[in-house]
């Protein structure tokens, strides 16, 4: 981040600081609805960063990140409901569980040279396989779901990730900002350069001494770990989990929209994408209501059209274009 920060022009710095201050102060002035939307924005920005690390930097298309999200969510919530182990400890068990799954998928994929769309299908297959597996896992309630109490001992304490919207707001904000810093830092590290090299041309990367398998595995390790943390947040925010919700392919799809629309392989792309997409959905709902349209499905039709328009007009994402127009440096970053 430091390099990025020094490279940014004064108005880039000003915009970043103002935005951060606005987000920090938002709960003072905004209503709960807006907060709940912003929580989703930060949540998707965070997950977008995690996914972007693997796809945007290391160039590996995963369409099965719901696997790590679900494993993270289920591990931490099951530890809490079954053994009373709180999420701050649970998260450190959730991370290795999801990371192990990620490493296995990566190992299988990259050892056997499964690339591109084939790798994407491999990730889908694992996520779906696990979804059905959890549908039958009795200890976590199988397809009946796993439920977190709201009045059990300690359930409403912040250290057990229970509480009001402020807790989740700042937690999701910290996650999103922290992930952005982490990603920026990694991007400016030797590892970041190696990832980009592997993404751009694996063969050439290998010829300059990069172990591409290891570089990809590290990206998968960090990406799946980060996604698992997002899963823990999800589990304790909603306080109920169903395999058909959390492991579903539509989860995997929705979490990749923000980074692609925002700008793949950029540091602020996932953030910008989340700031565009979540409020887009909400405002479409608002517009429908304002015009008195009760047509189930109409909102999502418009949403789909907007996706198609953005990807047609700005295939590199909105952020690089925005950065150029705001005359910010580092548009490619």
């Amino acid at each position, binding site marked *: 981040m430091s390099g990025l920060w020094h490279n940014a022009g004064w108005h880039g710095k000003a915009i970043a600081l103002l935005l951060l201050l606005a987000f920090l102060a938002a709960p003072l002035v905004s209503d709960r609805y807006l907060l709940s939307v912003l929580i989703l924005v930060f949540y998707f920005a965070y997950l977008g960063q995690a996914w972007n690390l693997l796809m945007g930097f290391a160039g590996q298309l995963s369409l099965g990140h719901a696997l790590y999200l679900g494993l993270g969510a289920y591990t931490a919530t099951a530890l809490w409901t079954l053994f009373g182990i709180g999420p701050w400890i649970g998260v450190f068990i959730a991370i290795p569980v999801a990371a192990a799954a990620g490493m296995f998928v990566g190992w299988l994929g990259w050892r056997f040279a499964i690339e591109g769309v084939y790798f994407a299908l491999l990730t889908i297959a694992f996520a779906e396989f696990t979804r059905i597996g959890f549908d039958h896992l009795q200890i976590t309630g199988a397809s009946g779901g796993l439920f977190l109490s709201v009045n059990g001992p300690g359930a409403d304490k912040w250290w057990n990730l229970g509480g009001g919207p402020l807790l989740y707001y700042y937690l999701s904000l910290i996650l999103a900002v922290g992930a952005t810093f982490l990603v920026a830092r990694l991007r400016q590290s*030797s590892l970041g350069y190696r990832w980009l090299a592997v993404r751009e041309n694996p063969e*050439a990367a*290998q*010829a*300059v*001494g990069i172990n591409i398998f290891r570089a990809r595995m590290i990206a998968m390790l960090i990406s799946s770990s980060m996604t698992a943390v997002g899963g823990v947040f999800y589990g304790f925010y909603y306080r109920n989990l169903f395999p058909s919700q959390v492991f579903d392919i539509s989860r995997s799809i929705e979490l990749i929209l923000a980074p692609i629309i925002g700008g793949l392989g950029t540091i602020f792309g996932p953030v910008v994408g989340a700031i565009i997409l979540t409020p887009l959905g909400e405002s479409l709902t608002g517009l429908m209501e304002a015009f008195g349209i009760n047509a189930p499905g109409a909102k999502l039709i418009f949403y789909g059209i907007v996706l198609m328009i953005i990807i047609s007009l700005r295939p590199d994402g909105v952020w690089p274009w925005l950065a150029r127009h705001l005359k910010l440096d580092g548009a490619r970053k």
Partner: protein
Amino acid sequence: MTALLSVRDLSKHFRGLAAVSHVSFDVNPGEIFAIIGPNGAGKTTLFNMIAGAMAPNGGTITFAGEHIEGLRSDQVAQRGIGRTFQVVKPFPALTVEDNVVVGALMRTNALGEARKVAHEVLTQLDLIGKRDQLASSLTLPDRKRLEVARALATRPQLLLLDEVMAGLRPTETDRIVSILRDLNRSGLTILLIEHVMRAVTALASRILVLHHGAAIAEGTPDDVLRNPAVIESYLGAEAL
């Protein structure tokens, strides 16, 4: 003098077809060694086996006293062999400087240092003025030099060049020839595969001629170019 690179009895076949059979040669420290031969002679296969992109079916490759046959290309690179690609493979979305920085990062994890190395190499190869351009925006001659720069940034003992002059105009060829001569003078050993005989005769101290996967001649440029077998099989067909 012990050879820097020593190839013994190296063979590779694809589905029963011998691409390289029982080739042996030595490259001494500090020399420029060229491999020539008509298309399909097995040059690139030989090259790829040395660079680790392909595992041989038989024979040994020794580099600086260590067996390297069958190692992955990143392991080969780590041991001090840099390479270029016949069809250039830059990192297109990265700047020229960052392309070279990636190379320099093989020897260090410190970005500042890698950047310093990159600047040196880019200056050496006359690319410093284009360091902020995207690699995808370069012309072919510039890309060829970028390939060399990226390989050099890994600080290799031996540089493998795969037809780095192909497709260049004579003036550009001369420019690369003089750059390579300078590099060689500063102690770099070079192994090159080349079609452009002008460059080969200008640079190489020794030449190996491949034909149908087998070595048919080896020696100084003068010796080799007078060799009747060479004239018949290769020069006769293409150069004359």
